[in-house]
Every structure is written in structure tokens, then in C-alpha cells.
């Protein structure tokens, strides 16, 4: 990461001298921040440590007295099970496919909204509707839309028979799941990209136009490089969000035909089968994989984290 040199604003200069004031500011800030930080950590860090502890035990709620220390055996069981890798594969595929499609469609939407002179309010209102709709409702809407007994998709799509059952096979089930996921989250992506587009200077675009750059050249040489930060932050947020996919799968297929995601597997072990030991190991693995993924995206695409963190 590049070093960020902070130029002191003129009115900040006397602060170094006025140390009483600085100390008071420090202590007030801590008091203001403390409740939020404690709350965030109580529900995340503490349970994660608890999961780490439980994952070392063979522990099932159906037989709580048989709790027994087994070391890393739960991790070995999970990692050597093809089910774990199949579900991780599904999750990664959903993440890559949906984020790519959302990025393309979201960018197109953002361009349209950026160019728009009339009806801006109407478009923005409608684009927020998918964002506001509960994921479970979106899942139902698409499940019924793809249904061969009550849906409309089969009759609208050419080359697809009216009695084609989307939920009978793996490939078509995944398409239906991803359709719901993409429908709901593309608007969010397009709003982030729209904010990025607004940062591209019109003067620079005009200059490129005067110099005879074609539309494609302007897109690749001026627009995209200038909104890089916005694109990367949008990709980071959406990719990690897609990796958590759970609601749509739960509602639409409940994991049938191998459509399970890694979140769904973890949920099933813990809540449905009460296997807290192995379930906790899966929780820890899920958390670690998200960490690795976040790190990889940040390093690979050189995401400016200070932009994501909103420092300035």
C-alpha cells in the first residue's frame, strides 16, 4: 500500500502544543466509541473464540454428556470430506459468476442513470426496490417464476419446453438461484458505480473527445481508470457478500441436487443436526476462508482500503 502523507490543516497546527486539549479529546473519543466497539466485538470476536474452543471437541447437543476433547480431528474430518469441497466449489462459482454479471449489468445501469436528464427520481426509486425486497421474498418470487406448474419463465423463454423442470437438475437449479441473487444485488452495485462515475471529471472526458478518442477509448483510458477505487470497493463488498450466500439456496432448493453452499452446510450441521463440534470447526473454516478471500482480493486488485474504511 502506498503511504498516505497527511498534510496538516493550518488550524490543526497548534494542537501539538495544547496537550491538555489533545488528551481531553482522546478520552472523549474513547468514551464515544467504546459502546459501539464493545457491541461489535461481543457478537463477533467472542463467539468466534468460543467456536474455536468448541471445534476442538466432539460435541453434539443430542448427547451433551459425551463431550470429549479431540484436538484438530473435526477439522480433519471436514477437510477430508468431499462434501466440504463440493460446497466450497459451489460457493466460489456463485461468487465469481454473480459478481462478474453484476459488475457488467451494474455498470450499464450506472451509465444509463448517469446520462439521464429526466425521470432521475423515478429510476432511482425503482432501482432501490430490489435492494429493499427481502432476500427470502426474492427467492420465492424467482422460484415460482421458474416453476413449471405455476411460473411464466418457461413460456417466455424460447427453446425451453413448457414443462421443463428447472429444479430437477444441478445446472438449472444453480441458474435459478443465481438469477435471484443477481436480480436483488445488481441495483446496489450500480449505485456504488454511479457514485464512482460522478467522480470522473467531465473536463477530462471532453479533452479526450476533442483529441479524437473513440467511445471505447474514452471508456478504457479515462472512465475506468478514474473510477478504479469505486469499482474495487464494490467488487470487494459484493464478492464477500456473495460468498455468504444462504437465503436464496435455503428458500429455492434447500440444498437439493448438490446446490448446497458452504454457509448452508455449516447451518445444517449446527442448527439441524446439533453437531456443535464439527459445526464449530466449519464455522472457523468459513471465517478463515472469508479472511483469505478478503486478503486475496485486496492484494490482487490493490483495493485502496482507506477508501473502503472512509478515512480522510
Amino acid at each position, binding site marked *: 500500500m502506498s503511504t498516505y502523507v497527511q498534510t496538516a490543516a493550518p488550524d490543526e497546527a497548534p494542537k501539538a502544543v495544547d496537550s491538555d486539549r489533545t488528551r*481531553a*479529546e482522546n478520552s472523549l*473519543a*474513547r468514551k*464515544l*466509541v467504546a*459502546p*459501539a466497539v464493545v*457491541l*461489535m466485538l*461481543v*457478537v*463477533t470476536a467472542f*463467539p*468466534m473464540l*468460543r*467456536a474455536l474452543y*468448541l471445534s476442538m471437541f466432539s460435541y453434539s447437543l443430542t448427547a451433551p454428556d459425551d463431550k470429549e476433547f479431540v484436538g484438530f480431528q473435526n477439522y480433519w474430518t471436514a477437510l477430508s470430506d468431499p462434501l466440504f469441497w463440493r460446497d466450497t466449489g459451489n460457493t466460489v462459482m456463485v461468487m465469481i459468476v454473480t459478481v462478474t454479471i453484476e459488475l457488467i449489468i451494474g455498470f*450499464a*445501469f450506472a451509465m*444509463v442513470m448517469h*446520462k*439521464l436528464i429526466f425521470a432521475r427520481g423515478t*429510476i432511482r426509486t425503482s*432501482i*432501490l*426496490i*430490489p435492494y*429493499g*425486497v*427481502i432476500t*427470502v*421474498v426474492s427467492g420465492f*418470487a*424467482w422460484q*415460482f*417464476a421458474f416453476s413449471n*406448474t*405455476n411460473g411464466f419463465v418457461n413460456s417466455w423463454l424460447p427453446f425451453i419446453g413448457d414443462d421443463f423442470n428447472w429444479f430437477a437438475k444441478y445446472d438449472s437449479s444453480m441458474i435459478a438461484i443465481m438469477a435471484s441473487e443477481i436480480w436483488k444485488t445488481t441495483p*446496489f452495485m450500480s449505485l456504488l458505480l454511479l*457514485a*464512482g462515475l460522478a467522480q470522473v471529471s467531465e473536463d477530462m472526458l471532453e479533452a479526450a473527445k476533442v483529441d479524437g478518442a473513440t467511445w471505447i477509448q474514452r471508456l478504457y483510458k479515462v472512465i475506468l481508470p478514474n473510477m478504479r*477505487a*469505486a469499482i474495487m470497493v*464494490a467488487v470487494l463488498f459484493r464478492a464477500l457478500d456473495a460468498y455468504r450466500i444462504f437465503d436464496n439456496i*435455503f428458500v429455492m432448493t434447500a440444498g*437439493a441436487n448438490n446446490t448446497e453452499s458452504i*454457509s*448452508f452446510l*455449516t*447451518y445444517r450441521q*449446527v*442448527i439441524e443436526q446439533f453437531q456443535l463440534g464439527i459445526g464449530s470447526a466449519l*464455522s472457523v473454516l*468459513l*471465517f478463515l476462508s472469508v479472511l483469505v478471500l478478503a486478503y486475496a482480493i485486496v492484494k490482487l486488485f490493490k483495493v485502496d*482500503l482507506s*477508501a473502503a*474504511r*472512509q478515512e480522510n
Partner: protein
Amino acid sequence: MKDIRGRILTAIGVVFILFWCLLPVAWIISLSFKSQEAVTNGSPGFFPSDGGGAGWKNYTDVLDDEQFRHAIINSIGISLIATALSVIFATLAAYAIARLEFKGKKFVLTTALVIAMFPVVSLVGPLFDMWRTFGIYDSWIGLIIPYMSFTLPLAIWTLSAFFREIPWEMEQAAQVDGATSWQAFRKVIVPLAAPGVFTAAILTFFFAWNDFVFGISLTSTERARPIPAALSFFVGADPFNRPASLLAAGAVVATVPIVVLVLFFQRKIVAGLTAGAVKG
């Protein structure tokens, strides 16, 4: 010539966006008016077939359902309480982040970022275990706590972005006139920050209303089960044979509050959503 082509493309884009955003919503509304008999026998097509319409019957059936009514009350109560508390804590934190220099600012911002990306399902196991030990499993408070933690990052970002726009001099002016830091905060900043607080509240409410993972994992009865969980458990174990039109009516009821919020506060929501991603 070129300009006209651009305008036509934009117009096509607009139509496509509207189609994209409204089609599934229109579909679920249309589905909610199909009669349950027609759905059981199979009624493909976008609109209810002739004689396959149900009028308002699905809606009256859903609203008569005891469990669904409980779920609505749970969702409204839990979401409102979580929103109020989350926004209060986020306001305090965001003020410190936007206005004060202190050690540990980076730690707070990093924590918020990590939590925003946290895989929530990995918490379900330990929380399930802990909540049962503390006796808050299947209760409002058991859902309010995780909702608060997970909405704090978004609320903190939104609010600190808003707070940075507030004229700093006014607070200093108040301090010059003899106000303490705390008084300057309460009397000057709070009224100016109200619109930002409101935006953060809407986004927080959206999250709590939308949550599904905690809703199904940390509840077991209608005592605390929120709408998304209630909808998913609405009928039976067979995921391929649900009473589609009845569920659609329930889904429409659950979506109405959100659509109303969007219609009224579109501008504020957009400002809040994009505040976290791009430096203004």
C-alpha cells in the same frame, strides 16, 4: 446525429432498468391474486387465468393467520428497537471518528470493515449455544443484539460521512461562546446531523427487516420469529410444493413497508448507501 443515438440508447436503458426492477415485484403481486386451487392444479403464465383469480382472499387468509400476525409484530418491534439502539451508538462513534483526533481510530474503522464482511453463518453455532445458556434464545433481545452489531458498521460509515459535511466552525463558535465539547455536540451537531441519522436509521431498519440467518437460527417459536423466517417455514417440509399464492400474499405484505420507505426517502437512501464506498 450521434446525440440522438445516445438518447435512444439511454431510453432503451431506462425501459430495461424499469423492467428489471419491477418485473419480479409485479409477478409476486400477480401471483398473490391467483386462487389456491388454481395454483395446486397448475396455472402457468404471468397473470391469473380466467376463473383462477382469488380476489383478496389470499390476503385475508394470511392476515387471519395467527403465526403470520405474530411474525409481523415481531419483525416491526425487533427491527425498530435494534434500529434505535444501533443508531444511538453509531452516532456517538461516528462523531468521534469525524470530528476528533484520537489513537485507535484506525482500529475502530478496521473493526467496522471486518464486521461488515463477516460470514454471519459462522456465528450461528456459538450464538445458538451461548443464547441458550443465557436464556435469551428465542426472544426479542436475542435477535436485537446481533442486529445491532451487524448494522453498526453501515450506520457508522453513513453517519461519519454526513458528519464530515457539517460546518466545523459552528461547533468551534459554540465552544468559543463557552460551551463544553459535550454541549457543542448536543446543541449544535445533533440538530445538523439529524438528516444523516435518519438515513442511517432507514438503512439499519432495512438490514434488520431483511435478516434471515439469525431469524431462523436463534428462534424456535412464534415468540420471536420474524417475517422472513416465518415465510420460509410457512408450510411443510416439501420445498417444491408450497401454497404459492398464499406465500406470495404474505411476501407482498412483508414488502409493503420497505417499498413505502423507498418511495418516500429515495434520495436519502442513495446518499447513505454510496457514502461508504466513495470519498466525497
